[in-house]
C-alpha cells in the first residue's frame, strides 16, 4: 500500500511538474511573441533562391547602373562598400574600419580593412579605393561612362598614404562625403575592371567586385545567376554576420508581368516577387507571405512648386495647396498602411529629418479661407476664379512611380472640392524627360521621387547656387533660403548642422515651396515564408547575404 501511494504521489508530482513546465513554456512563448518554429531557427547553409524582377535595366557599366532600382539588387551582392548605411540611416564601418576628418570637413582619412580581395584576385587596397573615387567623381564621359550623379561635386583628389590608408581632399566642406560612401552608387569594383573600355564594362561577367556573391551566368533581358564566394569574410558588422553567405545561389529572373511574378511565388516556383501592386499586399499577407515595404533615405513623394507661374507665385495659394490635400486618404485609398504619412519633405528615417506634421495637417477650412483672402472667389460651378481666370493646376504624373497617376486622380478630387480645376497629364518616360522639368514654363508642380544619403546636400539642390537645381524657380529671390543653404553647406559638424536643417524643413513647408504627398516606398517585396533573414539597407535594397531557407 505504502509503496503504491508513493508511486501515485510521485506520478502526480511528475504530472504537476510537466504541466507547469508546459504552461510556463507556453507563457514564455506567447509573451515573447515567438512562435516555436521561429525560436528554433538558426541560419543553415545551402539552398538556391529565385527572385523575380520586372526589369534588369539597361547597361551594366557599374557607374551607370549602380543606382538603378533593378541592377542595384545585383550590385549589392556582387560588390561591397566602404561604409554601411542601415535602414535608419545609421552609418557604420564596413571595408573602411575607421575614418577621421579635419575640423572643417575638407579632408578625410580612411583606414581600410586588410586582406580583402576582389573576385579577380586583386587586393582591395588604398590604390583600388583611389581608382574608384576618381571614376565616381569624373566617369569617362567620352566613352559613355557617367560620373555618379550624387557624388560630391566638391571632390578634389584622393591620395594613397600607405597600403591601407587613403586621404581624400575636398575643395569645400563636405560633411556628406562619409554617408555617400554607403550610397548605392558607391560600389567598389576591381581596378582591372575599371580600366576596361565601356563595352567590356557593360558585360556583367567581366566586372569583379569584392562581394559575397559572384556572377555565374547572365543573359541580357533574361536572368542573372549569382553563386556564393566561399572565401568571403568581410561582411558589414552591422548585419551581424561576416563570413560567407548561407544561400548557394541567387537567380534574378526577369518576368515583366506583375501578376505572373506574384503567382509564381504563390505556386512555389519562385521565392521572391519584386514590385507587386500595392492592392494585392493585404491578401498576400493574410495568406502568410512575407511582405516588405522598406523605405529609402531621400525626399518624400511630393511636388516642388514653381514659384514663377501664377497663381503659385502667391504664398497664400501655395499654403492652401499644402492644407488642402488629405494625405491620410491617399494612404487609405491608393496604398496600404505600409505607407506612411509625410512628416517633412524628407523621409522620416533620414538623420536630421524633423517632425513638421503640424504644417501638413489636412485643413480644408483653412485652405478655403486662404484662397478667399488671395482673391479667388468660388463661382456657381464650384470653380474659383480671379480676374476672370479659373484656378487651375496641371499635374504631370511621374512615370517612374507606378502609383503616381492614381494619387494625382485622388488629389484632383480633393482639390476640386476646394475650387481647383485640376488637369492630369501622363507621359511615357522619354516624353516626360523631354517636357517636364523643374521650374519649366508650363510645369507648376514637379513630382519628386529622389533618394539621397545625406540631408546636407538637400539645400544645395533646392536653390540655384553652385549649379543647384533651383527646384522652386526662386533663383536668388529668397534671401532666407539662401542664407540657410550657405550655413548648412558650411557646417563642419552635425551638431551645428541639425538645427539649421530643422529651420530649412520648417521654412520650405511653411512657404508651400514643397508639397509632400506620402513617404515613398519604391520597392515592394513579396517573399516565400520559408526564406528568412534578409536585411534591407538605407536605400531599401534587400540583401540575401544573411538569408537562409528555414525548414
Amino acid at each position, binding site marked *: 500500500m505504502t509503496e503504491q501511494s508513493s508511486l501515485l504521489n510521485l506520478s502526480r508530482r511528475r504530472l504537476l511538474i510537466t504541466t507547469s513546465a508546459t504552461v510556463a513554456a507556453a507563457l514564455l512563448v506567447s509573451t515573447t511573441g515567438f512562435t516555436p518554429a521561429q525560436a528554433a531557427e538558426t541560419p543553415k547553409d545551402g539552398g538556391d533562391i*529565385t527572385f*523575380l524582377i520586372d526589369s534588369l535595366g*539597361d*547597361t*551594366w*557599366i557599374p557607374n*551607370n547602373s549602380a*543606382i*538603378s*532600382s533593378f541592377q542595384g539588387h545585383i550590385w549589392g551582392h556582387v560588390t561591397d562598400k566602404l561604409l554601411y548605411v542601415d535602414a535608419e540611416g545609421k552609418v557604420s564601418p564596413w571595408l573602411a574600419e575607421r575614418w577621421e576628418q579635419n575640423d572643417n570637413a575638407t579632408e578625410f582619412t580612411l583606414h581600410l580593412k586588410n586582406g580583402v580581395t576582389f573576385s579577380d584576385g586583386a587586393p582591395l587596397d588604398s590604390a583600388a579605393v583611389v581608382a574608384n573615387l576618381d571614376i565616381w567623381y569624373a566617369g569617362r*564621359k*567620352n566613352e*559613355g561612362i*557617367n*560620373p555618379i*550623379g*550624387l557624388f560630391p561635386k566638391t571632390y578634389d583628389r584622393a591620395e594613397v598614404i600607405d597600403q591601407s590608408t587613403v586621404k581624400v581632399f575636398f575643395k569645400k566642406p563636405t560633411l556628406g562625403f562619409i554617408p555617400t560612401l554607403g550610397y548605392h552608387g558607391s560600389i567598389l569594383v576591381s581596378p582591372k575592371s575599371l580600366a576596361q573600355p*565601356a*563595352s567590356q*564594362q*557593360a*558585360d556583367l561577367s567581366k566586372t569583379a567586385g569584392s562581394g559575397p556573391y559572384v556572377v555565374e551566368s547572365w*543573359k*541580357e*533581358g*533574361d536572368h542573372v545567376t549569382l553563386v556564393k564566394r566561399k572565401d568571403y569574410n568581410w561582411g558589414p558588422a552591422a548585419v551581424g554576420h561576416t563570413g560567407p553567405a548561407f544561400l548557394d545561389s541567387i537567380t534574378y*529572373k*526577369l*518576368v*515583366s508581368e506583375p501578376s*505572373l511574378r506574384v503567382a*509564381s511565388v504563390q505556386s512555389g*516556383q*519562385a521565392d521572391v516577387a519584386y514590385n507587386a501592386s500595392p492592392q494585392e499586399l493585404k491578401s498576400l499577407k493574410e495568406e502568410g507571405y512575407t511582405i516588405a515595404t522598406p523605405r529609402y533615405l531621400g525626399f518624400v513623394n511630393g511636388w516642388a512648386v514653381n514659384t514663377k507661374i501664377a497663381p503659385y507665385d502667391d504664398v497664400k495659394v501655395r499654403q492652401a495647396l499644402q492644407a488642402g490635400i488629405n494625405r491620410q486618404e491617399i494612404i487609405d485609398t491608393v496604398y496600404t498602411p505600409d505607407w506612411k504619412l509625410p512628416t517633412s519633405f524628407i523621409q522620416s528615417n533620414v538623420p536630421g529629418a524633423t517632425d513638421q506634421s503640424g504644417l501638413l495637417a489636412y485643413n480644408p477650412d483653412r485652405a478655403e479661407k486662404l484662397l478667399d483672402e488671395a482673391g479667388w472667389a468660388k463661382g456657381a460651378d464650384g470653380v474659383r476664379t480671379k480676374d476672370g481666370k479659373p484656378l487651375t493646376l496641371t499635374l504631370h504624373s511621374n512615370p*517612374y512611380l507606378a502609383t503616381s497617376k492614381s494619387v494625382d486622380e485622388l488629389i484632383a478630387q480633393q482639390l476640386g472640392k476646394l475650387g481647383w480645376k485640376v488637369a492630369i497629364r501622363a507621359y511615357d*518616360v*522619354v*516624353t516626360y*524627360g*523631354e517636357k517636364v*522639368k523643374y521650374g519649366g514654363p508650363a510645369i507648376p508642380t514637379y513630382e*519628386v*521621387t*529622389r*533618394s*539621397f544619403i545625406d540631408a546636407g546636400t538637400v539645400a544645395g*539642390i533646392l536653390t540655384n547656387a553652385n*549649379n543647384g*537645381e533651383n527646384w522652386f524657380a526662386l533663383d536668388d529671390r529668397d534671401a532666407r533660403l539662401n542664407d540657410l543653404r550657405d550655413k548648412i553647406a558650411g557646417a563642419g559638424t552635425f551638431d551645428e548642422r541639425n538645427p539649421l536643417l530643422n529651420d530649412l524643413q520648417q521654412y520650405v513647408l511653411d512657404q508651400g515651396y514643397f508639397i509632400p504627398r506620402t513617404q515613398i516606398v519604391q520597392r515592394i517585396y513579396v517573399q516565400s515564408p520559408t526564406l528568412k533573414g534578409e536585411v534591407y539597407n538605407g536605400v531599401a535594397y534587400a540583401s540575401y547575404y544573411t538569408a537562409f531557407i528555414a525548414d
Partner: protein
Amino acid sequence: MSNAYLTYAAKRLGQAVVVILLAYVFTFVVVSILPGDPITSVLRNPQNGFREEEIAEIIAAQGLDKPIIVQLWHSLSGFLTGDLGISMRSNRPVSTLIAEVLPSTLILASAGLAVALVLAMLVAYGTRFVPKRYGQGLLRGFPSLFLSVPNFVIGLVLIHLFGFQLGLFRVINPDSFWATLFAAIALGIPISAQIAEVLIANLDKEAEQEYATVARSRGLGQARLFVSHLLKPASLPVVTVIALMIGELLGGSLITETVFGRTGIGSLVQRSVSTQDLPVLQAIVSLGAVIFVLVNLVADLLYPLLDPRVKILGGRKRQPTTADETSIGPTRVVMP
C-alpha cells in the same frame, strides 16, 4: 550557267543591296526624328541627380548633339565596313547582343515552321480524304479560322491550359522543351493556314490531272496516292509561300516571344524600340532584310531544281509562281 542567268543574278543581288541600304537609312531617319534618345532618358532619371549642363556635356561627349546627317554618315560608314556599332542602351557591341538572342529565335522559328508544315499537311490530307459526312467541309474552313485568330490569343490559351492547368511547363522557364513546343504551336498555327490554303488549292488541281486518275485506276490507296503522287507537285508553290512567309515567321516570333517570355530577337527589338536604341534597331532591320532577300533568292534558285518544267529564260523565269499568285493568297510581310 548562262550569261543571261548571271546577269539576272547580279541584278537581283544589286536590288537586294539597295533594299538593305534603304531599310537602314529609313530606320535611322524614323528613329532620329522621334524626341529623346536612350542616353538622355537614362540620364534624366531623377535618381541620377544630374544637372542640365552635365547632361549636355555627356551628350556632346557621345557625339549625339551633331547634326543628323553627320550621325547618319558615321553610322552608315561603320555599317558598310561590317561594324554594327555599340548599343546606346546597354553599351555592348550590337553583334554580341544579336548573337546572344538569335539562337532562341531561330529555334522558335524553325520549330514553328515545322509545326506549320505538319499541320498544313494534315489539314490538306483531310480535305481530300476525310469523307464529306465526317467534316471535310469543316476542314476546308480551318485555314481561314487559323488565320483569323491572332497568335498571341492562341499563346495565352496554350499557356493557361498547358502551363497553369496541366502544369506541363513552368512559365518562368520558357526555354524548356514543352514551353518551346507550345510557343512553336502558337507561332505555327496562323502560318500553317497560308501553307494549307496553297496546298489544298494545288491538291485539288493535281487530283484532277490524268496521271492521278491513272494511278487511282491502278488501285492505289489514298495514302499512297497522296504521298507519292500528289504531294510533290502540289507542294512546289509551297516553297515560294514559305520564302515569303519568313518575314511573318520572324515578326510572329516577336509576339510569341513576348507572350511566352522568351528572350530572343523579339524581346531585343521591344527593349530597343522602347529606349530608341538606334544602332540595335538598324542592325536588326538590316538583318531582317538580308534574311528575307536571301531566302527568296534561294527559293528562286531552288525552284528549277524541284520542277524541271521551270526554266530560266533570259532574265525572266518562274512562270508557275505568277500563275499561282491567286492561290498564295494575300501576302502579309511583317518586318521583324
